[in-house]
């Protein structure tokens, strides 16, 4: 897989390059927004690691532009950890957000997940731990037994299952499931998540299936 690293710090580019090559990826490097756009167009990378603090342009603006070049998997790497920035990046189409300093192994794992699912919906059938979700048949099983879900619960689970491993922001989930008028009604979302956990998780107080990203959103782990 060809991966484009966009970061203005040469040390970080070098180390990321080492880690990526070790994992068997091909690497291209860009130090600013202009060369990032040029390389994204010319090299057609399958994934991009994007730092938000670039010298010539705010990385946030680049997200839709880079996504437009063949829809690569896009992971934000940033020292900024303000939740609103994460939400903005994810809402603009980034597939994931990793805060610096990061663990190389975790980054590689996130990159694999993002690359697997970028640009297309997940499978019709998904197995996550003890849970089997059949999107087409609208059927959910836990340890082989059917679990009855309300319409909202199923809609939320299906939306998360469509992008397994990826954080969907509160706004994205609320807009899709409740409609644009309710994109700030986080309490709806929280109640449905809680109900889902009580039906699906081994221990609802220690969720492993539907995981919270504080202030940002939820992700389905598998």
């Amino acid at each position, binding site marked *: 897989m060809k991966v484009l690293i966009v970061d203005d*710090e040469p*040390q*970080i580019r070098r*180390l*990321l390059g*080492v*880690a990526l090559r*070790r994992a068997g990826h091909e690497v291209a490097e860009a130090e600013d927004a202009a060369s990032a756009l040029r390389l994204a167009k010319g090299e057609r990378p399958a994934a991009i690691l994007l730092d938000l*603090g670039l010298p010539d342009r705010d990385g946030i603006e680049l997200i*839709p532009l880079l996504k437009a070049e063949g829809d690569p998997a896009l992971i934000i790497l940033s*020292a*900024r950890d*303000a*939740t*609103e920035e994460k939400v903005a990046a994810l*809402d*603009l*189409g980034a597939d994931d957000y990793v805060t*610096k*300093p*990061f*663990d*190389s*192994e975790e980054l590689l794992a996130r990159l694999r997940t993002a690359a697997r699912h970028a*640009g*297309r*919906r997940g499978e019709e059938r998904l197995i996550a731990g003890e849970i089997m979700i059949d999107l087409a048949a609208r059927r959910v099983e836990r340890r082989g037994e059917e679990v009855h879900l*309300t319409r*909202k619960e199923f809609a939320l689970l299906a939306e998360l299952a*469509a992008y397994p491993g990826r954080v969907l922001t509160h706004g*994205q989930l609320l807009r*899709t499931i*409740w*409609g*644009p*008028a*309710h*994109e*700030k*009604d*986080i*309490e*709806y979302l*929280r*109640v*449905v*998540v*809680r*109900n889902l956990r*009580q039906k699906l998780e081994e221990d*609802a*107080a*220690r*969720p492993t299936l539907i*995981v*919270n*990203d*504080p*202030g*940002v959103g939820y992700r389905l782990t598998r």
Partner: protein
Amino acid sequence: MKLFLGAAPGVGKTYEMLSEGAARLREGEDVVVGVVETHGRQETEALTRPFEIVPRRVSDHHGRPLSEMDIDAILVRAPALVLVDELAHSNAPGSRHPKRWQDVEELLTAGIDVYSTVNIQHVESLNDVVASFTKVRVRETVPDHMLEQADIEIVDIPPDELIERLKDGKVYVPEEASRALGHFFSKSNLSALRELALRRAAQAVDAQMLDHLRAHALAGNFAGSERVLVAVSERPEAESLVRAAKRLADAMRAPWTAVHVETGRSSDFGAPERERLARTLALAAQLGGGTASIPATDVVSGLAAYARDYRATQLVLGKSSRSWWFELYHGSVVDRVVRSAEGVAIHVLPVAAGIGVRHRGRWREGLEARPYLWSLAMVAATVAACVGLSQLLDLNNVAMLFLLPVLAAAGRFGLRPGLFAGLVSAFAYNFFLLPPLYTLSINNPENVIAFFVLLIVAVVTSQLAARMRAQAELANRSARQNAALAGFAQLVAEAASPDELARAICGEIARLFHVDTMLFMPSPTGAALVAAVPGANHPDQLDLAAANWTLEKGKPAGRGSDTLTASDWLLQPIAKGDKVLAALAVAHADPGGAPIRSDELPLLLSLVHQSALAMDRMQLAEAMRELDVVRSRDRLRAALLSSVGHDLRTPLTTIRSAIGELAQSSLDPASAAIVDALDGEVGRLNRFVANLLDMARAQAGAIKLAIEPIDLTDAVASAVHDVRKTLDGHEIILDMPPDLPMVRADPQLLHHILINLLDNAGRYADPGTPVRIAARRGPDGLSLAIRDEGPGLPEGKEMAVFETFTRFDGSDRSRGGTGLGLAIVRDFATAMDVAVRAERCGDPQGARFILSWPDRLVVRIDPEMLA
């Protein structure tokens, strides 16, 4: 453009828009549907059938299809009229404009007419108002200028009917939200929204009317909302008229103004009348009305002209109970106003006559002898001249000469001396010139006519001349006043600082009225003198008391007022609305005299009013400057913090990645141990940097809260996951009731609080002991406790742990704390209004940290709501 404005969803805006569009279609116009939300309702669907519907543009957003109005297709299709539902809609990311109203603007610019719909709660300027009573804040707003440029049609149904429709399921609401919206659709809310919609529509129409009037300079009455005008005179009853007008205006929520029309008659006023008039106008200003004095030839035309300019809709007049023959002769002012002020509702209030008050003043003036002696002398001179000339000229022509003294007397001294000169002339003509001479009898019938003609001409001429004189005097006085006002406005506008402004006000008023002045402003210790002219002036105890009274009550005090009259000074409040900005004191230069002449009071009040405007503007400017300073300081802080954060984290990232790479390579056991130690230390350094930045943020007051409902189960699970390394070896026992209500908090701050508390527990708990996390709903809120088993806290010093860099004896550095964690916990919790405390525990020994949310931060939500 036409906007269908509704008070709430479900009133039938879309239906109305489609019906009107269909009517245009039937008239043969080219109408298409740009976007219409039918919400699957068949009646609405049926209505869209006659139209050509421009297909929506479907975009792919993360693989999810989102459909939006296709503005390019509409521009290419170029219909005469396009129907666009829901003007407030936000477009999908990646659309040309983020908001649908911007699409509509583009369509309008391209010459395509648009019909659209919007609910009142989406109007930008009303967003706060609506949120304040519905408790539902709408994020999607439409700027007010969209309403201003549109024809507005109100789609209105009574609240009861709407609630009925809602119950019948005829209103589209996402079903899962219907309970929440139950509150929104309460009758009181709907009534309030409806009133807002109607008023906003009226306001938009009003603004368009003003533009139209300006564009076409139409004279006429087009007021869209109410404006009340009350005509006041010098009579004592005028005050009750002012109060009546105020009540009327309050009931209509309309602006109002008290106006006095200055005619020639006004110049005859004595001091008491002037004072009463000034008091009446001051009362109007005090009650929140505007005031105006306008010169005019007569009351009726002046009033009608002003009502037209002011676009008054309501005019309040007093009608005195004068005798019927007085009205027969003069005509009723009220009747004439009714005839000349079309389109204005006139309220007539009966008031007592109060006759005689005015006449005393007039007679006193009339008794002065000199004008009459002068008139007599002029007539005598004319007689002498005529006797000489009568040898040469015809008698009747000579009579014309008598008009000269009449004109001169009337023009110079006014009406009464003029009439006197006319009478004397007529009789002198008869006595000295008409045969038989030196008698008052007349032989020739022709000469009888000549005598009476002279008499009538003399009377009329003197009246005309006197009126002209009065007008000229009035115009002169108005010009003086206007010049004074303009000069004053200029001077106060030039003032660059509050001190300079205070000196300018004192200096100008002292110069214009030949008085001494002082200016007081409120201070923590009461009235403080900020300027005085001459500078040596100093208030004594009594003056200060008067100044304090004026500043407190916003009413005049001191000499010539109702309060503290023993002071030599008259204190006038300088107030904007209810806010008293300052008190102006004036005093006559020599101590005994009245501070200011009663006829100068209106001008003084105007200047005081102007001063209030200038001071208010100055204070606003100061406040803005201060705000700017604060803002730029905050920006600087935020920038500094983010740059420091970036600079510290970048090398950490490199080091951590490097260690990661080393760990992946095959190392001998000794090197692997070193790499492992490095990894642990970098992790610690990273946490320290994070804490330092958090601390700096909290200390700099740079915390920006983003409060949202939070499920504590969620928050605790995330925090436990993030500190799993520190908590290694400790069992985490969670005691979170499944029906625990949500709380309001900032998710990120709460995350940092929990991480620090858990980190603390992990480091201080004895190895192998459990850490317990328990949440409880109490009678006055909700609490979350984290309990560890370890050395605990020293007795009596439990709260000291929250101080920066506090470490207790026995809690040595090997525990690896930064000394910042708990201070951050305290600061972040305080910022969110969450209380935090630490407790010592026995059996087993340890510490407990408790976060408590007050009841108002507990989210009340029916868990069944979304099932």
